[in-house]
């Protein structure tokens, strides 16, 4: 008979070793699966994956930018998660921010000087993201409306709004897309810093990571939202306005998502599509959760997931496989990591004596 018992605290080193071990193991399993699916040598496959991520300076920069963008969305969701508010609306909030940025670029591109335009875009995109998160937060605070489901639905409302404007702003007409916005004037494009067009995003997100770390662990707000998450009645008991903290935190969460949307539109894609968030709103949930909502660890977890993505992409192009292969590998690795948490929290006890008495029971 098997019994599950909660562990006394596991030493941090051991817990980290287990997590690291399982990631390695998962990578091996993925390699075997890839080998089975493609008939290739798994080591060659991993060589290809590393090649895909680090093969050239450009590839490294692209990977860094992707990590930064995913990390940005993950950082955005974290304060909400620490408050035990399941914000699954990252996708929609990013899209809302990206939409606002694109709208400014299109409508004000030739009316404002670039610096002013960027400032307006910044304000508009964080306002749009914040609004998108504040709506479910308001109802959660007021009526305890289920936020998981509400934020999920908000994603699709945002997608359809963007789909509407993609057609309105279609360029050229009939193409079904907006095309590169302000291709000639580059109005509203994020400036190139340090001679590298990916550098600015990486720097901005690095700063944001530090800021979020400080906010969550050292600020009064960070403390308040942790109290609200752990025990709403204790929060009320010390006079914390739970409603207000929920809405405030979600405004922050949505605002950073909106900022990520602006980085995507103004810094990377220079266009707007319904799929510009590319599932980051969902992947970020996993990134944040894997890191136990710790911004520093999130750097690692977002790196891992992006590495899998770009590596699998490289496999796909090199061996003529489908791009979706990366999703399968990411899924498998996530399953492994998700499953491992159990063995860190709990301990399994096998009791033999039990079996004996059960047999006896069977005989009676």
């Amino acid at each position: 008979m098997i019994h599950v018992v909660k562990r006394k605290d596991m030493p941090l080193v051991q817990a980290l070793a287990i997590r690291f071990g399982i990631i390695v193991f998962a990578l091996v399993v993925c390699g075997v699966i890839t080998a089975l699916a493609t008939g290739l040598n798994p080591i060659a496959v991993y060589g290809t994956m590393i090649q895909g991520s680090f093969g050239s300076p450009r590839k490294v920069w692209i990977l860094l930018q992707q990590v930064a963008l995913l990390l940005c969305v993950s950082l955005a969701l974290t304060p909400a998660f620490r408050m035990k508010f399941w914000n699954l609306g990252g996708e929609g909030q990013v899209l809302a921010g990206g939409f606002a940025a694109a709208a400014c670029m299109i409508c004000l591109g030739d009316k404002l000087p670039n610096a002013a335009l960027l400032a307006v875009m910044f304000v508009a995109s964080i306002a749009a993201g914040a609004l998108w998160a504040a709506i479910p937060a308001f109802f959660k605070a007021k009526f305890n409306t289920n936020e998981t489901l509400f934020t999920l639905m908000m994603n699709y409302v945002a997608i359809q709004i963007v789909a509407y404007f993609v057609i309105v702003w279609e360029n050229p007409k009939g193409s079904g897309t907006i095309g590169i916005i302000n291709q000639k004037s580059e109005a509203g494009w994020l400036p190139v810093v340090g001679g590298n067009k990916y550098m600015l995003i990486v720097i901005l997100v690095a700063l944001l990571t530090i800021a979020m770390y400080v906010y969550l662990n050292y600020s009064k707000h960070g403390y308040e939202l942790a109290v609200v998450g752990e025990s709403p009645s204790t929060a009320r008991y010390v006079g914390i306005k739970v409603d207000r903290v929920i809405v405030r935190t979600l405004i922050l969460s949505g605002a950073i998502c909106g900022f990520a949307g602006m980085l995507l539109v103004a810094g990377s894609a220079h266009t707007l599509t319904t799929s510009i968030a590319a599932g980051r709103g969902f992947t970020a949930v996993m990134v944040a959760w894997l890191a136990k909502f710790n911004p520093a660890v999130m750097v690692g977890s977002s790196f891992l997931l992006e590495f899998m993505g770009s590596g699998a992409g490289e496999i796909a192009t090199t061996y003529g496989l489908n791009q979706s292969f990366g999703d399968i590998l990411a899924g498998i690795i996530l399953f492994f990591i998700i499953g491992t948490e159990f063995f860190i929290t709990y301990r399994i006890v096998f009791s033999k004596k039990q079996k004996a008495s059960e047999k006896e029971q069977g005989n009676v």
Partner: protein
Amino acid sequence: MFEFLVSFIPRAVVQGIPLLFGCTGEIVTEKSGNLNLGIPGVMYVGGICGVIGSFFYENSLSDPSLMNPALGILIPLVCCILGSLLMGLIYCFLTVTLRANQNVTGLAMTTFGVGLGNFFGGSLIKLVGSEIPSISLTATSNLFRATLPFAESLGWFGQIFLSYGFLAYVAIIIAVGASLLLNRTRVGLQLRAVGENPATADAAGINITRYKYVATCAGCIIAGLGGLYFVMDYANGIWANDAFGDRGWLAIALVIFTVWRPGVSIPASILFGGLYILHLFIPTGTDLAVKELYKMLPYVVTIVVLVITSTRNKRENQPPESLGLPYFRENR
């Protein structure tokens, strides 16, 4: 007007059936306290497994006309059920046995399932080497789409009620069955107890783990059938990557809209199906862009229902009380 309804209703129904499968499956799952956000992935897997099964069966025959109708239906059906069941088992193993976070597991399953669908879809397309990026399984589809021979002779009645493939009726039977099961049987009572208050159900001697496994796996199988219906019936046996779209999430929206009642989900899914295609029926000449706004309707309606039920504190209309929470008997 009548003309319009006769042409509109059947189209709303065929749109609604995949949602009905997904919604019924998710209701059964959620009633056990598991919030399975992997349903969109499961529906993809259900669809692609059916496609793989029938693809190899069709290709093993020299001529599609040699196809055995029973096998032609059974093979994709069994493949679909097995594939969805496997997804259900993964979800249950992680969330029930290993007590992992349901939201994260569900999202990972969706990533995995959609990836799996598109990967094998893409691989099969490559295998065929066709010009257009899709696989066509016409012979199998014809079996799934077969209607009663006299349906067409019944005019509007036949149009509205009898013009669908057998899976559509299966969907309705499953939904009615699930409704009866949940409300009229001992098993249903116990399942609801597991979702409402697992500690209580446990104390009453109900095997929580078994109920959660069975309900979630059954839910996944039902949802997977929705994927199969979509490919074989709605899409005429044509698999194209990402064609299923976000219907999985719409099915989850539908669960909220129906306030966790499979009986209500039958008309509700047809309504959602109607809302989903309403834009096709807007008088021509309107701005194309406005049609995109119409597609927003199902989600907006769901949000409104979600808000209304939460403001009206009626106990029976709330989500199952322990929805999304893992259960550990010795938690302390």
